[in-house]
């Protein structure tokens, strides 16, 4: 079976990797370079503390895969499991955290509610007055997204996958069903075409004549200068959308969760820098003197009902693998890609029912 995958982000590459293990002949097309999409611009927060119950089993599975994959592909993902804290700054959000933790626990996630004073035990210099309540999960942490992508790419190549960067797919050739793609001026035959184009997925889907109405979100993020290991868990303030963690290089990496946009743009704004700095230093006042070195932005997509869109479409051989969503794409992609590979090779996979494009 010949499969063409559009997009070399975490979703495209994990799908390619698991497809190659099942014996498919895979080519991945990337319009720019490997870290160009959201997978090369995100904050690497990995936790099963998700507020969408459909995604939790995939997060738990991905945690296992993130443990196994580095050895499999011979590349260190620099995954540091020092925990993940979600904080709420309003009573309504505190209630939401409690409800989310109940559901998570039912599904086997070892998350728990913690008081502001307990957050201070997890994070030195945390200001407990800046929040109302928090939740915590120790089996979570921060991964470095770049080695995830380089490592998956390496594993793919070892298994014979061809990765064509700087090669945009311009056309999806359909005659009855999928026949192949046209990219970089050449025709490439394929039995199956996978749309793993992230924020560009609506546009790519159009090329197959299939309507996809994913939301596009833009998210800004920044890093400070490096300091010694200081901040263990990933912190995410669900009220302000502000999050921060320390990278493997010692930088404090932080941002504000994405907002829906009409057009894809990766401009940086001063407004973001100011809003972020204000809330980050309320949470951890000691960060005040730390200098911001660099800010950037990324774009990702989300299914219009908030869930990923993964599976066969009405066009024979055309598959969606997008809409991975806010703060969840890196978390669910390995397991989602693995299940999708099974779906493509076997023609059916009940584990992906909830994400089928046919649900709309």
């Amino acid at each position, binding site marked *: 079976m010949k499969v063409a995958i559009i997009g070399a982000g975490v979703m495209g590459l994990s799908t390619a990797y698991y497809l190659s293990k099942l014996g498919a002949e895979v080519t991945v097309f990337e319009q720019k370079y490997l870290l160009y999409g959201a997978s090369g611009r995100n904050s690497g927060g990995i936790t099963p503390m998700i507020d969408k119950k459909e995604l939790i089993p995939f997060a738990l599975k991905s945690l296992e895969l993130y443990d196994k994959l580095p050895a499999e592909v011979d590349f260190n993902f620099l995954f540091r499991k020092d925990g993940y804290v979600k904080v709420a700054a309003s009573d309504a959000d505190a209630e939401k955290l409690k409800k989310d933790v109940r559901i998570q626990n039912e599904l086997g996630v070892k998350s728990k509610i913690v008081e502001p004073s307990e957050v201070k035990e997890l994070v030195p210099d945390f200001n407990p007055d800046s929040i109302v309540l928090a939740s915590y999960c120790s089996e979570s942490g921060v991964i470095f997204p770049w080695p995830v992508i380089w490592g998956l790419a390496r594993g793919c190549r070892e298994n014979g996958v061809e990765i064509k960067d700087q090669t945009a797919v311009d056309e999806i050739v359909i005659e009855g069903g999928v026949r192949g793609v046209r990219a970089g001026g050449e025709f490439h035959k394929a039995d199956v075409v996978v749309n793993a184009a992230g924020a560009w997925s609506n546009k790519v889907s159009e090329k197959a004549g299939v309507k996809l109405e994913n939301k596009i979100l833009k998210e800004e993020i920044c890093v400070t200068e490096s300091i010694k290991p200081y901040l263990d868990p990933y912190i995410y303030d669900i009220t302000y959308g502000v999050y921060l963690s320390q990278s493997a*290089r010692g930088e404090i990496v932080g941002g504000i969760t994405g907002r829906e946009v009409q057009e894809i743009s990766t401009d940086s704004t001063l407004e973001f820098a*100011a809003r972020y*700095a204000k*809330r*980050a230093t309320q949470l951890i006042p000691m960060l005040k003197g730390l200098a911001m070195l660099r800010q950037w932005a990324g774009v990702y997509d989300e299914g219009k009902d908030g869930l990923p869109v993964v599976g066969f479409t009405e066009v024979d051989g055309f598959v969606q693998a997008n809409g991975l969503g806010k703060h969840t794409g890196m978390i669910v992609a390995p397991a989602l890609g693995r299940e999708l590979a099974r779906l493509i090779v076997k023609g059916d996979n009940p584990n992906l029912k909830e994400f089928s494009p046919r649900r709309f």
Partner: protein
Amino acid sequence: MVKERKIVCRCEDLTEEEIIHAIEEGYDNLESLKRYTGATTGACQGKGCLMHIIRILSQKTGKSPEEIGVTTQRPPVNPVPLYVLSEGGESE
């Protein structure tokens, strides 16, 4: 044991040898090379090393500096402490 070390990026303590090694590993365009080695992402944000990186890349790949281009320059131009930035806006 001190070999001749040509430091290219002072912030990240990268030698010319390391940059060449990365190019040979396949990180042979500026954006990939920058991310793989960390060159231009340190405290000086490339002010000290970007031109050296482009020179080495040009020598190794045979591409002209124009073809290689430059990396996206990110704000702020110079490091700014968070307390200064936090005075610039309201958190809603």
